[in-house]
C-alpha cells in the first residue's frame, strides 16, 4: 500500500478505557465521556447488576479476580471488537469485592459512527467477558456461601461470533 493510498483512508481515532475497581461507577459521567468522542453518532451502554436469587435469599455477592490478567483480558476483548467493527471508543468497567443486591457490577460503553456497530460490539464484549475474563462470583445467601457455576448458555453465546 502506497503512502498516498494510506493517506486517503478516513482517520479514525480509537480509544480503549479499562478499569477493574471496587468503587462504584456513575452511568451519567461514563456516558458523557463516550459522547464527547469525535465523529461518533451513537453511544450504546450496558450495565450489569447484582440480581436477587429465585428464592429471595441473597445477602450479597463477592467478586474475585486475577489482578493483572483481568485487565489484560478486557483489553484483548476490546481490541478484538475494534478489529471487527469501526468503533470510536470502548469503555469497560468491572467491579470486584462485595456487592449488594441491585448494585452495579459491570459497565460496557461503545461510541461509534452508527448504531449497528455499537450494539453489536457491546453484545460481543459482554459475551466474551463472561467466558474469557478471569472473574468469579460467590453468592452469600441465607443458607450459606456458594460459588456461582458457569452457564452453558454463556458458552453457547460465543458461537454466534465465530
Amino acid at each position, binding site marked *: 500500500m502506497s503512502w498516498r493510498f494510506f493517506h486517503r483512508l478516513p482517520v479514525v481515532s480509537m480509544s480503549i478505557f479499562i478499569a477493574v475497581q471496587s468503587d462504584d461507577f456513575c452511568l451519567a459521567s461514563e456516558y458523557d465521556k463516550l459522547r464527547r468522542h469525535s465523529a461518533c453518532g451513537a453511544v450504546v451502554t450496558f450495565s*450489569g447488576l447484582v440480581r436477587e436469587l429465585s428464592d429471595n435469599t441473597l445477602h450479597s455477592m463477592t*467478586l*474475585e*479476580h*486475577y489482578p*493483572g*490478567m483481568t485487565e*489484560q483480558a478486557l483489553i484483548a476483548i476490546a481490541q478484538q471488537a475494534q478489529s471487527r467493527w469501526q468503533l470510536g471508543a470502548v469503555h469497560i468497567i*468491572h467491579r470486584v469485592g462485595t456487592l449488594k443486591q441491585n448494585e452495579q*457490577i*459491570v459497565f460496557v460503553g461503545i461510541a461509534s459512527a452508527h448504531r449497528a456497530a455499537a450494539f453489536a460490539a457491546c453484545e460481543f464484549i*459482554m459475551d466474551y*467477558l*463472561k*467466558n*474469557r*475474563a*478471569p*472473574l*468469579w*462470583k*460467590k453468592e452469600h445467601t441465607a443458607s450459606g456461601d456458594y*460459588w*456461582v*457455576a*458457569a452457564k452453558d448458555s*454463556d458458552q453457547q453465546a460465543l458461537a454466534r461470533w465465530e
Partner: protein
Amino acid sequence: MIKILFFAALRERLDCEQYLLSCEGKMLQVADVLQQLQSRCHTWQQELSRSDLLCALNQQLVPLTASVQDGDELAFFPPVTGG
C-alpha cells in the same frame, strides 16, 4: 522457580493461594506441572483433575500442552463467572 496461583473455588478447596515449584532448569509442559501437583495428596489429585480446569501462563489462557520454564507465572482456576 515457577510461581503457581490458584483462584476462586479451586483456591478454597486446595486451601492454597500460591505454590512455588522448582523445575530445576528443565523445560516442562503445563501437564507435567499439573501431574506433580496432583501427586501431593488426594484432594489435589481430585481438584486438579477436573475437566473444566482452566490454565493461564503469564496471564494468558493456554492449553495444557504449553511449555513452562523458570520464572513463569502459572495459574489454575475454574470456569469464569464475571459480568
